[in-house]
């Protein structure tokens, strides 16, 4: 079920009608949440519910096993990881592996030609698998006590606002919250509402209106030969993906607020980052912190010398790229970020640039430009397309006036400029929303949000799925 669909609005209406009745008693609340979440997920394809159930039951019993049989803790952890990564591997990466084996064999002159499995990718598998794994890993580390109630566990794992596209909420944050559900306060309802409306605005007005222009550029048989055009397109894509994903996260957080719960902030103006390290504390925070806590730090983090630190950065970022999609272009995207993070460690360039006059602006522009280059790999359908686009982006002399005129005629450039201004304001430490909140009274804030809601209806772009569903 998509958040931006009539089905979901009806589903949510029904859920919210029954929620006050169901929330009072623990078991009733958890079972209700699980049932609602399964309906939400099963609306897409009920057959894939068995995967969530399998993944969840495995981790639930592994968690209990770790507590009861402490000598076998490691075995249970390995079992959980194998089960989760195995499922993910089969459904997400099997065809990628088969394709690569075929290519490799053919390189050595062996024609094996293994057939592709052609399995459908279950929506949100990467999100709930990682969420489930965090549960067993935290129990193994002793930072979390396992729950003894399977409904409590599934209420955490399958909670519908964040089930298919995050944020990846840790068990130690959400399980305790789920132990109670007091009536929501006016503040929670209002904050939830505001997050939902702003999330929808980001998704349906900004991301969905930028999407066709970006798609047109990448679907063209021959890429348009103009550097400015492609820089503009990549800027549009950068805001499309940002607003698409952060919009979803905002809606999820708002829905959680309406139930009386809190999800972590997942995006914090990533494009005003002054270094790549900062970028990863602002972009998809729940995923980057997951990789930091469950991959980078266990590998040794920065504690085992410089060479090891770089190695750990590379492993983490390559895995992060691979998490996003089963294609070499995603791995290249991860590699580019790893390279930038390594370069930062070696040269300490952010500090040097920041010491220059206007250094903050330079650093932000530099990081943003490099992030755009990374997005080329992320968005391109193949390496050859990414190569072509990058070649055009850096062949500055090929500026085609007509194509620029055409691009401007789409006026999506206007959206882009608005978004850039918004980020600049944030970079200057002025959060427009906060500014409005501080300087307007109790009536103006809701009135402005009401206007945003109307903008969502009348200015919405051609509907499309959330980009991060595919991951």
């Amino acid at each position, binding site marked *: 079920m998509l958040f931006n669909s009539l089905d979901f609005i009806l589903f949510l209406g029904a859920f919210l009608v029954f929620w006050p009745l169901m929330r009072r008693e623990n078991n009733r609340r958890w079972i209700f949440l699980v049932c609602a979440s399964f309906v939400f997920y099963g609306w897409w394809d009920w057959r894939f519910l068995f995967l969530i159930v399998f993944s969840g039951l495995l981790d639930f019993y592994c968690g209990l096993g770790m507590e009861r049989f402490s000598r076998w803790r490691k075995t249970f952890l390995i079992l959980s990881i194998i089960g989760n990564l195995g499922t993910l591997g089969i459904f997400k990466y099997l065809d990628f592996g088969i394709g690569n084996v075929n290519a490799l064999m053919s390189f050595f002159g062996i024609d094996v030609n293994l057939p592709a499995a052609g399995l459908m990718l279950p929506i949100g598998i990467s999100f709930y698998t990682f969420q489930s794994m965090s549960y067993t890993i935290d129990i193994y580390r002793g930072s979390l006590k396992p729950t003894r109630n399977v409904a409590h566990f599934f209420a955490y794992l399958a909670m519908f606002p964040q089930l298919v596209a995050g944020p990846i909420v840790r068990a130690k944050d959400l399980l305790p919250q789920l132990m109670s559900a007091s009536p929501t306060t*006016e503040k929670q*309802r*209002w904050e939830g509402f505001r997050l939902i*409306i702003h999330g929808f605005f980001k998704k349906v007005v900004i991301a969905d209106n930028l999407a066709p222009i970006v798609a047109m550029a990448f679907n063209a048989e021959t890429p348009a030969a103009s550097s400015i055009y492609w820089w503009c397109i990549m800027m549009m894509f950068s805001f499309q993906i940002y607003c698409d994903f952060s919009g979803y996260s905002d809606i999820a957080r708002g829905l959680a607020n309406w139930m009386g719960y809190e999800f972590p902030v997942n995006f914090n103006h990533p494009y005003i980052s002054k270094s790549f390290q900062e970028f990863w504390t602002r972009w998809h925070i729940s995923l980057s912190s997951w990789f930091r806590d469950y991959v980078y730090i266990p590998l040794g983090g920065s504690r085992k010398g410089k060479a090891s630190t770089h190695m750990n950065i590379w492993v983490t970022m390559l895995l992060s790229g691979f998490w996003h999609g089963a294609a070499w272009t995603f791995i290249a995207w991860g590699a580019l970020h790893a390279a930038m993070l390594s370069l930062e460690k070696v040269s300490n360039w952010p500090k040097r640039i920041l010491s220059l006059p206007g250094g903050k602006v330079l650093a932000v522009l530099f990081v943003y430009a490099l992030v755009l280059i990374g997005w080329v790999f992320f968005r391109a359908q193949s390496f050859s397309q990414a190569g072509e686009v990058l070649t055009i982006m850096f062949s500055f002399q090929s500026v085609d006036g007509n194509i620029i005129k*055409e691009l401007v005629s789409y006026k999506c450039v206007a959206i882009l400029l608005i978004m850039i201004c918004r980020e600049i304001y944030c970079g200057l430490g002025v959060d427009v929303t906060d500014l409005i909140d501080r300087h307007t009274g109790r009536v103006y804030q809701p009135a402005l949000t*009401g*206007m945003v809601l109307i903008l969502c209806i*009348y200015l919405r*772009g051609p509907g499309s799925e959330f980009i991060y569903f595919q991951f």
Partner: protein
Amino acid sequence: MMKPLEEIVKPSLLKRLLKERMAISLFVAALLFIQVGLFRTDIVGMNKHDYAIGKMKWKACADMVFAGDSRVQECLSPEAMTAFFPDRQLRNYAFYGTSYHPKYYDAIESVLDPESKHPAVLLGITPNSLTPRNFKINGLKMEMDKYESLTPAVKHIGVPTSLLPMTPSVFLQNLVGKDASEYYRQVHADGWVSVVKPIVPTYSLDEYRRAFTDNYYDDDIVEALLTRVKTWTRKGIAVYGFRPPTTPAMVELESKMSGFEEEHFRQLFETAGGKWIEVDPFGYLSYDGSHLHRDGAIEFSKDIAQKITEWEVATISGNTPENF
């Protein structure tokens, strides 16, 4: 012990709602929604709802009325013909799915101004408008029923603010420009509907093939039409007939499946007192193989106005042309 008064008296619902910022927000959104809905245009031009309601309210306002089904509705632009008839009021009174039905004749006549010096009716004859299935559907009645059955609340608030026509095209037209200009349907206050769509010459063929399955040109409907032509002619109303231009494939399909013979019909029509206008059957741009594209319609409207003017001049001078 009695409770203090403030504990017993609960704040009113209104007061409680005013404390809910979410409720205020939704209230503002609802007001804006109604406001925007009532005043929004259908991409360009007038509101579709106003168009339909306005058209059905026309009474005694036209010197020349164009009648027929969707092909006529989309192929005749009164505005494009104004230059030929500067002192006359022209109205396109065609409707989607309309057949030549007694009630439609009455409605056409009611639109004509009884004081007009040059009352005229221009009938677009398509085989589909002379078939029993269309006769049963009765497009005019369907349009009227659609609005008359609505409650005032739905009619005045629900329809104009409906989410259905709220396509992204409004945004595309204003912001993206290019895409919208390649696809839109604009309604005009004079009754014309201009359509700009990508040209797909075979698009409508299947639909018409289905429409003509077990549904043929009907002699009784034609007989009733000819009787009305005679009546109007007797009353001094000039009656013109023409077959709306389309594509060769459509003409072939219509002739084969409906049994309509243009030459035979023309003879009957002229015998009844009507004037048949020869048009270039395939000389105008059609977007779907049936209906005319905006550009084709403007060109056709001018051509047909030219022919009527020539006829009128010839009639006044007493030299009625053989082939009109």
